[in-house]
């Protein structure tokens, strides 16, 4: 049964990664990241359920809390970028260009 959970988690992770890589809107990218986090959470809970003990649950709680904080910071950054640049299109944010 563990395999099924892991496959679901892998599928969610892959969908999230696809979103992060292909979405042009910064908010969409954040959503993709959120999906990837949740895939990790599914994994943690699955391992906990099938013999990992209580550590997996606690770690999942931590992840959720940190994710919330991270999204708060991430969205705040996106809003600031929008105010300054009048866009949140990832293709236009190329200040790191060498």
């Amino acid at each position, binding site marked *: 049964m563990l395999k099924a959970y892991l496959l679901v988690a892998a599928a969610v992770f892959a969908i999230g990664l696809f979103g992060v*890589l292909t979405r042009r809107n910064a908010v969409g990218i954040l959503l993709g990241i959120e999906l990837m986090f949740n895939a990790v959470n599914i994994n943690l809970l699955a391992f906990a359920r099938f013999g990992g003990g209580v550590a997996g649950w606690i770690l999942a709680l931590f992840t959720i809390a940190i994710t919330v904080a991270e999204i708060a910071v991430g969205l705040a950054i996106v809003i600031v970028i929008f105010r300054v640049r009048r866009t949140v299109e990832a293709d236009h944010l190329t*200040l*790191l*260009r*060498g």
Partner: protein
Amino acid sequence: MTLTALAALVVVLPFVAAVILGACPPLRRAGRPAAVVALAGSGLSLILAVRLVAELWGMVRTTLALGAGPPREVLLTIAWLPQAGPEPLASVGVLVDPLSTAMAALVALVAFLVQLYSLGYMAEQRPGSLGRYYLYHSLFVFSMLGLVFAPNFVQMFVFWELVGLCSYLLIGFYYQRPAAAAAAVKAFWVTKLGDVGFLIGIVLLWGATGLFAFPALARAVTALNPGFLALCMFLVYLGAVGKSAQFPLHVWLPDAMEGPTPVSALIHAATMVAAGVYLVERAYPLFLAAPAVLALMAWVGAFTALLAASLALVQTDIKRVLAYSTVSQLGYMMAALGGGAPLAGFFHLLTHGFFKALLFLAAGAVIHAVATNDMFRMGRLARGMPKTTAAFVIGAVALAGLPPFSGFFSKESVLAGVWEGGLYVPFVMLTLTVFLTAFYMFRVVFLTFGGPRQAEGDPHDPPAVMLGPMWVLTAGALAGGVLVAEWGGPSLAQFVAENVDATLPHGPWWLTPISVVLAVAGIVGAWLVYQREAVSAATLRREFGPLARAAERGYGLDAAYGALYRRVLLGTAGVIGWIDRYLVDGVVNLASAWTLRAGARLRTMQTGRAQDYLYGVAVGFLLLALLWGAW
């Protein structure tokens, strides 16, 4: 007080004066008080040096009379660079023997007299300049005395360079004059050329024996390969060639006359230029084991004497005549050393120190009075300055070598030493030089103090502070000959050699008549040409046409050195510069250019889009995962 402590004090006192003047700018800028400090240093040093000579003379007298004397401590050394083992790598100290004390007494005496004389000569200098002058003077006296008492090659070399530095500073004393600055640099570089050889020679000797000290080296020298030793001693001799202005490195000394005249008297006549001779005296046991170098020394010395005397004939600057004369007399000393008569060479060094310093001081009085160096703008100065004239003539007669003046005795013994050494061609050159010496010196005398012209202005004798030192040196030039005799004790030769049988060379019976006749002939010749004008100087010059013109250009030596410098040295420098600029730098530039181009290519990968980087991360992870799976 022990002998060594006394000698150490002799060396240190001028140094204390130099430190006081150097560390206390208000005192230095005050001028006259600075002179008092310097005079106190060298005066006390002189008193102690005289006492040292007296004590040592008494000891040697006892030793010679009884065959054994009181034990005396001659060596004081302090470890300077310690190393494992009983002996330090290098040490400083004093070596007290008759040679060093006699030399030190000469140095201290001439230094004190010249400093006294400078009070009058340099009176018009600004106080600041005067203080600087006396600071350099004190430093020089310290350095020279340190050199004289040096017990090993290392200390000698250090002080050797220090006197070179002081010489540079004092030649360039009027540094606002471009000629003086250039002359200072020239003196520094030309002597440095010889010093490089000196240093290499010292290090080679040390490499073979592990020793620097003169007494130890003299004992160890027999164990060395003669060819190797000859090479070492040749290199050491090169140092003496530079310092004592031997051909072909004599070109710096005439230019050094740009310095103040008292400096020329002290450094470039009596003491520093004799350091080369003193070095050979000090290391004579080593040179004795290298006869080829001694022979070379005699030939070069005799050739230098003749060459410089011929150059002195055509100078118009009174100081340059004296400078070439100094070169010529140093040639005599070197020839005596090379001919195997170190005592004669040293005797000539002492007497020359007196009469040449006297000549320079008298010339300084003349220059002071008429404000020019050009002899053809002087004339009939004997009327206005009889005392200076008397002093100068006595110096000139001593230099020409007429009895009973000091120069006669020392020049005779030099000639005899070269003859007895079997060096007949150098002997002929030196004998010919006797005639030239008398001629050029009395050319100066008649042009300056006699002759048909009358110098402009109202020249008169200098003040007592300048005349006093001249009288003391006059006494030395007059009476220096007594050193050859035994006056209630050892003669100079017996004293220096510490051997009752030691005498100065006498030579064959015909030597004295020939040299006196030649000297008189030179004086009469100069009288005919420049006083009576029976023979016109212009006619004489025409007769010797090409030779005279060549001599006026210094035989083209300066031009040759200039060409050597421009063509060879600058040419080589150009080639090496090209190699450095285009080959060595080229490799570096190529590497950096390639790095830059690689960077330009690679920067296109940095798009700045976060998602592209994330692609990279994902692909990289996948690749790693695949690799892991495959493995």
